């Protein structure tokens, strides 16, 4: 970094004024007997984005704080961050090279779609059962493992789509059995303090499944082959044909952006699954029943929906979505019994960012986390350091969201 002073002072400026805004604004609103529910968050964002120029008028006139201001301020904060970074480090690859930025952005969105699918499962579980499954990453890992074993060991040469179906069935079955045995008593009042019990018992499931897979499959990394070998796609290509016949191609857009084949197929499968899921949730009786239970348990029970069945279905379906995203990604990354942990942490970040229990929030959160990770990996000057910090980017987002706005982007009020 050439001029680190510019960058650090911009960050410090935002932190200092964000803290001042977050601490002082609620006090002023409280003293004038106004609504303080939004004051802390709005004060922090306005302070961080505009400093004293925005804060002082707010303090003087104490207007009703609109959510739009916070959103604009957050965009402003991102703007300040980007501008100060590019001023401070003009030679950085992600400032000087437009095609690099475009490629990172596209790859971030592509991987974000799959993250979103996985987080969707977690948020579905939360919206129905009211718990966060700490074993979500293990479902993801098992999904990938099943695809690998199905296509390489059990039935070599079988079509990968069959393996995807098998992964779905197995993760669905594990979810059903676990929910029936361990989570069902929560809702019948057989365990004390069900919330804490759920945290610990899903944590225990994660521990158990991870080592079970390690004991059965070993600790060596495995990797499935690509699902589809498509010809090298270049759009639009220099030679008039935009289908070039090479066996193992990637998707290339406008000669600059290259998306690797496994990620592309994974994203397409994820989008198809997302469409099917929405169809299921909004067009079938069972899907509508699920949504009804998430809105009001008692009213749904009165209307003839069995909440117990819906619990099981939601948990199994959530686990299946995680398994499916693992199953699509096993062709892109090498697979270990430990891969679940990082994926689970990422899903936690996404659902907290999007708002716990919100389906669109989970999807948008997935895209955002994908972009943040892509930017973080591409732009940090020191590459070895950057790769060590990858899990931390999301965690920093999680920490900030939990501290400033625990309801997330689309969450219901706590």
């Amino acid at each position, binding site marked *: 970094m050439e001029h680190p002073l510019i960058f650090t002072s911009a960050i410090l400026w935002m932190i200092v004024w964000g803290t001042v805004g977050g601490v002082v604004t609620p006090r002023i609103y409280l003293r004038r007997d106004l609504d303080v529910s939004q004051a802390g968050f709005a004060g922090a964002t306005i302070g961080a984005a505009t400093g004293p120029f925005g804060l002082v008028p707010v303090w003087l006139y104490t207007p009703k704080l609109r959510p739009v201001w916070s959103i604009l301020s957050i965009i402003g904060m991102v703007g300040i961050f980007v501008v100060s970074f590019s001023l401070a480090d003009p030679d950085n690859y992600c400032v000087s090279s437009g095609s690099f930025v475009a490629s990172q952005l596209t790859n971030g969105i592509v991987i974000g779609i799959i993250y979103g699918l996985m987080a969707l499962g977690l948020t579905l579980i939360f919206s129905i059962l009211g*718990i*966060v499954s*700490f074993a979500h990453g293990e479902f993801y890992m098992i999904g990938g493992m099943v695809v690998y074993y199905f296509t390489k060991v059990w039935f070599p040469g079988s079509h990968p789509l069959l393996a995807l179906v098998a992964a779905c069935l197995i993760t669905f079955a594990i979810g059903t059995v676990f929910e029936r*045995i*361990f989570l069902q*008593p929560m809702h019948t009042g057989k*365990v*004390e*303090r069900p*919330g*804490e*019990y759920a*945290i*610990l*018992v899903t*944590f*225990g*499931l*994660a*521990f*158990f*499944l*991870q*080592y*079970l897979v*390690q*004991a059965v499959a070993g*600790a060596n990394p495995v990797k499935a082959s690509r699902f589809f070998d498509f010809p090298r796609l270049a759009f639009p290509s220099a030679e008039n044909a935009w289908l070039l016949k090479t066996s193992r191609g990637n998707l290339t857009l406008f000669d600059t952006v290259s998306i690797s084949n496994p990620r592309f197929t994974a994203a397409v499968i994820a989008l198809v699954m997302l469409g099917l899921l929405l169809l299921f949730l909004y067009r079938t009786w069972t899907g509508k029943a699920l949504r009804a239970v998430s809105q009001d348990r008692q009213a749904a029970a009165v209307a003839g929906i069995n909440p117990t069945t819906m619990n099981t279905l939601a948990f199994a379906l959530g686990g299946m979505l995680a398994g499916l995203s693992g199953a699509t990604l096993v062709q892109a990354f090498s697979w270990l019994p430990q891969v679940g*942990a990082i994926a689970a*942490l990422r899903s*936690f*970040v996404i659902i*907290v960012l999007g708002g716990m229990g919100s389906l669109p929030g989970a999807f948008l959160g997935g895209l955002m986390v994908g972009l943040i990770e892509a930017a973080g990996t591409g732009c940090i000057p020191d590459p*070895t*350091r950057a790769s*060590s*910090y*990858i*899990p*931390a980017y999301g*965690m*920093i987002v*999680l*920490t900030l969201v*939990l*501290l400033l706005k*625990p309801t997330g982007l689309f969450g219901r009020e706590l």
Partner: protein
Amino acid sequence: MRRWLPQALAGLAILILLLFPLVYSRSDYNFIMHLWITAFFYAILASSWSLLAGYAGQFSFGHMAFMAIGAYGSGLFSNYLFWTSEPTNLCYEIQLGGRWLVLLDPIGVTSTQNTCLDRAIAAWPSSVVVTQPSLWFGILFGILLGGFFGFIIGALVLRLRATYLALFTIGFSEILRATISAEIPVTRGQAGLELPPLYPNGITVLGRFFDATDKIPPYYTMLLLFLGCMAIMAWLERSRFGLFIRSLREDEEAAAALGVNTVRYRILVFVITSMMAAAAGAVQGHYIGIITPNILIILQMSLVISMAVIGGLESIVGAAVGAIIVQFALELLRNSFTIGTITVDMSIWRLVFFGLLLMLTLRFWRNGLVYPILVRFSRAGVARETVAKRQQLPEGEDSRGAR
């Protein structure tokens, strides 16, 4: 009747632990001693976590992070701070009395460059004395650092409940792990930070000399730390503090309405338990001699949780006993065996069994496996006494007390 039984049993157990290294003399002496030291280490962690999670209801998954803060605080202290009798004029230094406290510059693992102190030593005459501060100050520094971070985390999570708190503390733990792995020049990253042994020059107790690699001094150090932590926690548990933090667990609003300063006690329980974890981490770090960021992986936290749950989440003694039992069971189950043609790799399968045991314990024995036994012992005779008293009452009166 037998009211003295629990105290007598506890006294007997402490006596056995105190005498054990002097009496035991089989060939696997060093291995068993190592097991005991590690078991005490986990016992401190599990029992302090049970105070935090079982008593106060704060399900923190960041307990190992505080342990690591203690270990790394102490390790960095003993790797980067030196006393010299002359100023180096190259490093950051402060004059204290007639000596200079020198802070080394971080140079990393593979650097060919020498530290500022090495360069200064090369230029000095041999009369200059370079010594290290006592590592007990390092351990103290680690404990205080753990308490400081416990205070910060405790204050930050005031608004968060159950699930959110668990997520936040996992996040904290992961950020810390990433930072330690990434800041290689300072922490040496995955290569690990080396720590001097607890008694670098050996120690002479009662006329017997123990050298730095002897297991007996660290055994007693860890045992005393363990007993000290247990004593503090047992005292806290019986005091108003114990009542107040249990009221936080049951119903925070009601507790606040009844005049419990919930903010103070929530922060205080975080500070106390994280200081204990940091102390355990610092001493264990010096005993093992090297610490890596892998002490922060989720497996370690899972182990502490399963120890506390199997022992009894809502009992400090239960959690400690559970930790010792689980630690011994885990180590003694390491031996792989063969049935016919199938070799069972017990080093992995034992963890599978413990995962299953953790889930089943949670589901069917909410109070853990050890705690009910302890209760049986400590209430021995009480039931019979009550029955006997009831029978002495005149007819008709006992039916009021009966449900």
